[in-house]
């Protein structure tokens, strides 16, 4: 039974965590500017569909990735316009976006991909080539962690540090901080509040789109109905658990990915002589987030002036 924890488990955890990290950081970019973003789930789902369909039509995963980013941007733009121009409640807009994405991706799947299958064409996508014989794989520990992974995993590992630097060391990071904490004051100081928020929300669309593309281009090889399966909400949980900090959010997302990997590895086997029900393991990220919210830290940081452009 000591075979449960090994490098392969961490390898799987990284793979499971990658879409969560990307989406959580996307959510972070939006929420740090003060725009609540519960539409991550929908953007992941649309990204997964666009990624699969783009790659299916052209045979190139890069085109798929481009399509996923584009559709993520489009849905993010919808959220940005609704919240910034029409001053819609952020949560309502997010709910509508999730519903729209679930309906639209399934509708398009039935209209565009299923008829292809009925004609006998495969809907399996040519995804990104994983590391197999590269020099990376021959590095002792790193190799075992990255074996059979794609560059997107590396991207998800590096991105939190890059965002940490951007948010803390650049002028733009300072502006995000100002807008997210007191938009009125920021505006008085001459910060273009609306533009900062647009950029934040659009970035969340890009990252959630990439997270979706990862599902079809680096993980599952084909699109299925509602395949995001709640990842957008786990990412949201990771974002809160990580207290809106890029490294914290990424660490929490990795932790939640680890639970998934552990659950896949155990498959109902006992761990240390205890039978852990799969459902309870899957429940853990949500439960931990509620506990974190109940604790002394983790107060939600709502947009300071919700609705004013």
């Amino acid at each position, binding site marked *: 039974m000591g075979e449960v924890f090994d490098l392969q488990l961490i390898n799987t955890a990284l793979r499971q965590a990658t879409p969560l990290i990307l989406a959580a950081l996307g959510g972070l970019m939006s929420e740090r500017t003060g725009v*609540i973003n*519960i539409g991550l789930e929908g953007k992941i789902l649309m990204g997964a569909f666009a990624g699969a369909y783009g790659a299916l039509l052209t045979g190139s995963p890069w085109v798929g990735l481009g399509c996923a980013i584009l559709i993520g941007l489009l849905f993010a733009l*919808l959220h940005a316009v*609704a919240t910034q*121009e*029409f*001053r*819609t*409640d952020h*949560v*309502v*807009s997010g*709910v*509508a*976006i999730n*519903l*729209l994405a*679930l*309906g*639209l991706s*399934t*509708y398009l799947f*039935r*209209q565009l991909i299923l008829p292809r299958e009925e004609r006998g064409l495969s809907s399996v996508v040519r995804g990104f080539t994983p590391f197999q014989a590269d020099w990376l794989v021959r590095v002792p520990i790193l190799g075992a962690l990255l074996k059979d992974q794609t560059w997107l995993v590396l991207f998800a590992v590096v991105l939190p540090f890059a965002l940490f630097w951007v948010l803390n060391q650049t002028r733009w990071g300072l502006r995000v901080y100002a807008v997210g904490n007191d938009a009125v004051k920021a505006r008085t100081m001459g910060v273009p509040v609306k533009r900062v928020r647009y950029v934040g929300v659009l970035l969340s669309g890009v990252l959630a789109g990439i997270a979706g593309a990862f599902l079809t281009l680096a993980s599952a090889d084909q699109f299925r109905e509602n395949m995001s399966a*709640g990842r957008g*909400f786990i990412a*949201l*949980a990771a974002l*809160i658990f990580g207290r809106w900090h890029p490294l914290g959010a990424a660490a929490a997302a990795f932790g939640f990915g680890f639970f998934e990997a552990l659950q896949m590895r155990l498959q109902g086997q006992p761990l240390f002589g205890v039978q852990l*029900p799969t*459902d*309870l393991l*899957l*429940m853990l990220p*949500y*439960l931990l*987030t*509620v506990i974190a*919210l*109940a604790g002394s830290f*983790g*107060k*939600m940081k*709502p947009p300071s002036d919700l*609705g004013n452009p």
Partner: protein
Amino acid sequence: MKTFRLNPSSRTWMQRLLNALMGAGVLFGTLTLLIALAGQPIGASYRILLQGAIGFPPSEQMTPLDAWDGVLHDMTLLLLTGLSVGLALQAGLFNIGAAGQLLMGALIAAWLGVQQGIPSSLHLPLTLLAGAFAGALWALVPALLKVWRGAHEVITTIMFNYIALYLTHWLVVEYLKDPAGAAPQTAPVRASAQLPPLGNFIATSWGIVLTVVIAMLLWAILYRTVWGYETRATGANRDAADAAGIPTRRRILEAMLLAGALAGLAGAIEVCGSQYRFFEGFPSEYGFDGIAVALMGANHPAWTTLTAFALGALRNGAYNLHVVTGAPKEIAMIVQAVLILYVAALRLRRGRLEG
């Protein structure tokens, strides 16, 4: 199309009419576009939609009673979850957790429904009450966290939806499974715990009547009692309500518990009046539809009732279109999402939704 009004209730009749007409335009525009993109003839598709929605014009596969049965069944669930979300919004809370509350209510009702030894005249009311109680309990923790710690109820109720999903799945697989079969579902509830159908001509249960009565009661509570006034005042402006001496924490807590009870009751009615058991993959998405219903119904029980009926008709119409022509049944979902965005863009927002 920007409206910069401080107080939407000062809208004139003209503007409201215009908004409604534009809403109808958005609805039929989206619907027509989706039908056309699915490669279906538009006129014939609308006829099939109407057959599913109101049973007119009658056809051989779909009699008016079949259609009304489907619509009333959906209306029951949509109305209860819509009232749940709407009531919480009246108190200034966004209850995204109706789906989880519905699941807990359904599971507890299914559990109590199979128990022996309960007097048969009490079995049904007890089962429904237990479902409502379970839903209220599931809303309690998010409500307490909101009141005590300021934790955003949107986040906690989303988390509780997933916790409910996995918890009910675990319980139904491990402990409550019908020993007579291998399927992950409970045994059917006893006859004494079943909601009887409205008549031998229609399968819809008395749940619809119960639900409409509850909607009327809720209207009376919200608009004709001090409690309702204080709850609405809390939602409109919590600071002002505090200053006026209203115990806003209590009102928020009570409204959220009642909202949870309504969603839990929806689950119980679905079990006792339609499914007769709890099973893996129990339809909880009605909880999310409740958000659309409440929003379009402006959180007012009367409008919510009307919206629940309309969306129930839309869903069944789209489903009929799917069955007859093979067009994707997600058409209803997309239209619903577009309608939410439209209504939300009109600034019918939380706390000031009385129109």
